[in-house]
């Protein structure tokens, strides 16, 4: 079976029905373990005090907010090149989950920033590009809702997704481009010397895994709904024409 056959709507509904309970279970296990470990069993930071516990929500949600958009970009490109309907629906299904991740990152960042930086918000490169990414998410969902023809909606939202990708990349790498921001450098790095202390690092990795698996599970679950909604829309149109 080739990769594309897994994305056939009928085949997709079959295999996702089997894997989704496992994915939701694994996500719940990772999130419960990581958050309980991080919240109850890690020490305070010597400078940031107990606010360091916000890292277990802020970093994974920000990571997923950016990477959800990148995933939507890949799905949109597949739609534009191959006209594969499920890929367009995957991108559509991911957007509200991406909005949620962005909101969590913005909210926890503001709450963390107030006691550490003395301000809830600053118009600095990383925060500003992240906020613009949030606006792109809202625009993306609004555009899907505004256009009745699903193929035309998929075309236009794919183009919007490509434009918004600039800000997804910018919000990830802004701290490297400009050095005048309040925001610190990357927390997650493959270079061991760059990482935070192990006592915070391990629960953070588990939380990150939990957010990733939860995102995948929610996108698959919501894509199933979008496939059904599309079939319902086609049947309703046929009923009206009959």
């Amino acid at each position: 079976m080739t990769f594309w056959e897994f994305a056939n709507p009928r085949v997709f509904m079959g295999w996702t029905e089997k894997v989704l309970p496992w994915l939701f279970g694994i996500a719940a296990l990772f999130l419960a373990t990581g958050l309980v470990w991080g919240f109850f069993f890690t020490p305070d930071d010597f400078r940031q005090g107990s606010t360091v516990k916000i890292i277990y929500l802020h970093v994974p949600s920000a990571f997923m907010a950016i990477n959800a958009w990148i995933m939507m970009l890949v799905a949109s490109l597949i739609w534009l090149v191959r006209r594969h309907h499920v890929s367009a629906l995957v991108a559509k299904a991911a957007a509200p989950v991406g909005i949620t991740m962005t909101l969590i990152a913005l909210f926890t960042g503001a709450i963390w920033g107030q006691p550490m930086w003395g301000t809830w918000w600053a118009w600095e490169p990383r925060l500003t590009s992240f906020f613009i990414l949030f606006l792109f998410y809202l625009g993306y969902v609004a555009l899907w809702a505004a256009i009745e023809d699903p193929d035309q909606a998929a075309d236009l939202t794919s183009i919007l997704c490509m434009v918004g990708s600039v800000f997804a990349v910018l919000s990830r790498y802004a701290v490297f481009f400009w050095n005048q921001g309040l925001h610190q450098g990357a927390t997650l790095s493959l270079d061991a010397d760059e990482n935070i202390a192990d006592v915070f690092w391990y629960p953070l990795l588990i939380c990150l895994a939990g957010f990733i698996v939860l995102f995948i599970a929610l996108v698959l679950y919501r894509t199933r709904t979008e496939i059904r909604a599309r079939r319902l829309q086609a049947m309703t149109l046929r009923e009206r024409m009959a």
Partner: protein
Amino acid sequence: MPDLGSYATEVGLAYAVSLALLGGIILLSVIRARRVARELDAAVGRRERRQE
């Protein structure tokens, strides 16, 4: 419960709001999935009745 010191409000609020948002997107996804499945079943039923 760990001693969160003077930042108890900030940390508590961050966890409460984040978990509420995560719970919200899961709940909304389930509600929409059930509504769409119900409407699709009804549409399939109508089509089958017409074909009989």
